């Protein structure tokens, strides 16, 4: 696998531009090319299922996973972060199903708990500054192993979508309707929550947890304004994510800005353009928050 990635890196290195000759940029490009379609695909469903606050909670909750990993003395706290995120995702899903509390209140509580725990533990060890990179992302942290992991994640998610995408999307339209057609709604929702947890957490070291949700949501939100049917929705989201990702990466090199933030600014730019181009669509969306009725 490493030799494959080396080979791909060398391919990138053959490009005529200055940025392509740096190893970290070569790796970053590969990472973006893999992460963008993955995030776009997952993001379209997060937006469709109105789970944006859920993914935001998971992103912030990584702070606790990180702190616990550090406290446990792990050199690479990423695994602790992923395990924590998956546990949180399952707990939140479980509590939301059984509780009378509003869904966003439950999420608010979980986010508060994780962030507070994370800050308390990290500050106590006097290591808050070190982990600034996890807040705002560090493109230098992208390793060959990270790229391999991203490739695996992309393959797994695409494979899963061949079985579950339609069931998940139908659940998002109406859970009872999906259930009446034999979809195991609880399992599908829990499974998707776990996927979001893993995918979001994997990319936090590169993009930072402050912005990870934006990276997930924005291309899908933009595509939603422009697309006519579901195929266009997913296709546009992937296209927009790739352009924002690559454009943001390269421009961050020349502008000397943080890569994750630059990518998100590109994505915001596209959203704004879509808003100007199709204001009618957005107005309709704002006026009818949840009703298909007559």
């Amino acid at each position, binding site marked *: 696998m490493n030799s494959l990635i080396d080979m791909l890196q060398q391919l990138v290195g053959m490009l005529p531009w200055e940025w392509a000759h740096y190893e970290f940029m070569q790796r970053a490009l590969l990472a973006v090319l893999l992460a963008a379609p993955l995030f776009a695909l997952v993001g379209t469903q997060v937006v469709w299922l109105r789970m944006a606050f859920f993914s935001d909670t998971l992103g912030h909750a990584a702070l606790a996973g990180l702190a616990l990993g550090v406290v446990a003395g792990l050199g690479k706290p990423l695994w602790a972060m992923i395990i924590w995120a998956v546990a949180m995702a399952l707990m939140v899903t479980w509590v939301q199903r059984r509780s009378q509390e509003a869904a966003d209140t439950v999420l608010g509580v979980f986010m508060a708990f994780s962030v507070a725990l994370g800050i308390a533990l990290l500050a106590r060890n006097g290591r808050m500054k070190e982990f600034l990179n996890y807040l705002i992302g560090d493109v230098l942290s992208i390793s060959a192993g990270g790229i391999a992991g991203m490739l695996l994640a992309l393959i797994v998610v695409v494979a899963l979508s061949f079985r579950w995408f339609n069931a998940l999307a*139908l659940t998002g*339209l*109406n859970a009872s309707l999906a259930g009446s057609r034999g979809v195991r709604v609880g399992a599908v929702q829990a499974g998707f929550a776990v996927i979001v947890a893993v995918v979001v957490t994997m990319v936090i070291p590169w993009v930072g947890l402050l912005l990870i949700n934006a990276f997930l949501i924005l291309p899908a939100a933009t595509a939603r304004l422009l697309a*006519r*049917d579901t*195929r266009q929705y997913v296709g546009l989201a992937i296209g927009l994510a790739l352009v924002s990702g690559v454009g943001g990466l390269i421009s961050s090199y020349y502008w000397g800005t943080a890569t994750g933030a630059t990518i998100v600014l590109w994505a915001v730019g596209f959203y704004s353009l879509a808003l100007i181009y199709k204001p009618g669509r957005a107005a*309709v969306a704002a006026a009818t928050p949840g009703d*298909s*009725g*007559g």
Partner: protein
Amino acid sequence: MSARDDMSTPSIVHHAAPCGACVTHVRNLGVRFGRHVALEGVSFDLHCGEITAIVGPNGAGKTTLLRALLGEVPYTGERHFHGGGGSGRTTDIVIGYVPQRLVFDRAAPVTVADLFTLGLGRRPVFFGIGDERRAKAMAGLKEVDAEHLLERRLGELSGGEMQRVLVAFSLVPQPNLLLLDEPAQGLDAIGMAKFHDVVAQLRGRFDVAVALVSHDLEAVARVADKILFLDRTLVASGTPDAVLSNPAVRQRLGMIPG
């Protein structure tokens, strides 16, 4: 079958009557949430080819009954289904469900063709709908005179059009029992007329039993062959005329004091 299985044990049984038309039996259905009894002792038949309206005041348990039939809430007793032709074979009941509304914003990028695709098979809709699925969708829409709606976005549909699409969707694949939740709600005059057309077409199908759950007795009385008046238990059942002249029903409707 458990040792407790006797006449008081609730069950949902779907089997073929001798003439070949199928029927779903509900016997002694009960639902309780903690200490609160939402439904008790509910028994009725749903005959294929017939339109049955399940009505009652607010809090009567109509939604609970619907959820019990859909298997969403636990209800007391066992549940077994017999289906198919004159042989009385045991199969799983296939339920078609037409919800009152789908929750999505009107700008959502999903067409009627997309909706059908989501329910027909595993290949993700974004990989392409394909000719076969498109043909099935068209065939389904044809039953409700809605072929022209295939490529329309769901958010562009009127209330009546949405209902027809959902009815068509629920008929593919063919169910034994079609449940419509508050179908008369929020329809304008044209929508209501179309709804009557759809119901008339469903009545002619001897392979599916249709149940309409509604709080609007008047609206569904016109289309139903049979009415079940529910108020935590079954208060009355029979033809619309018979039920509307039942004193217990009239009392609950506020037509007689007491």
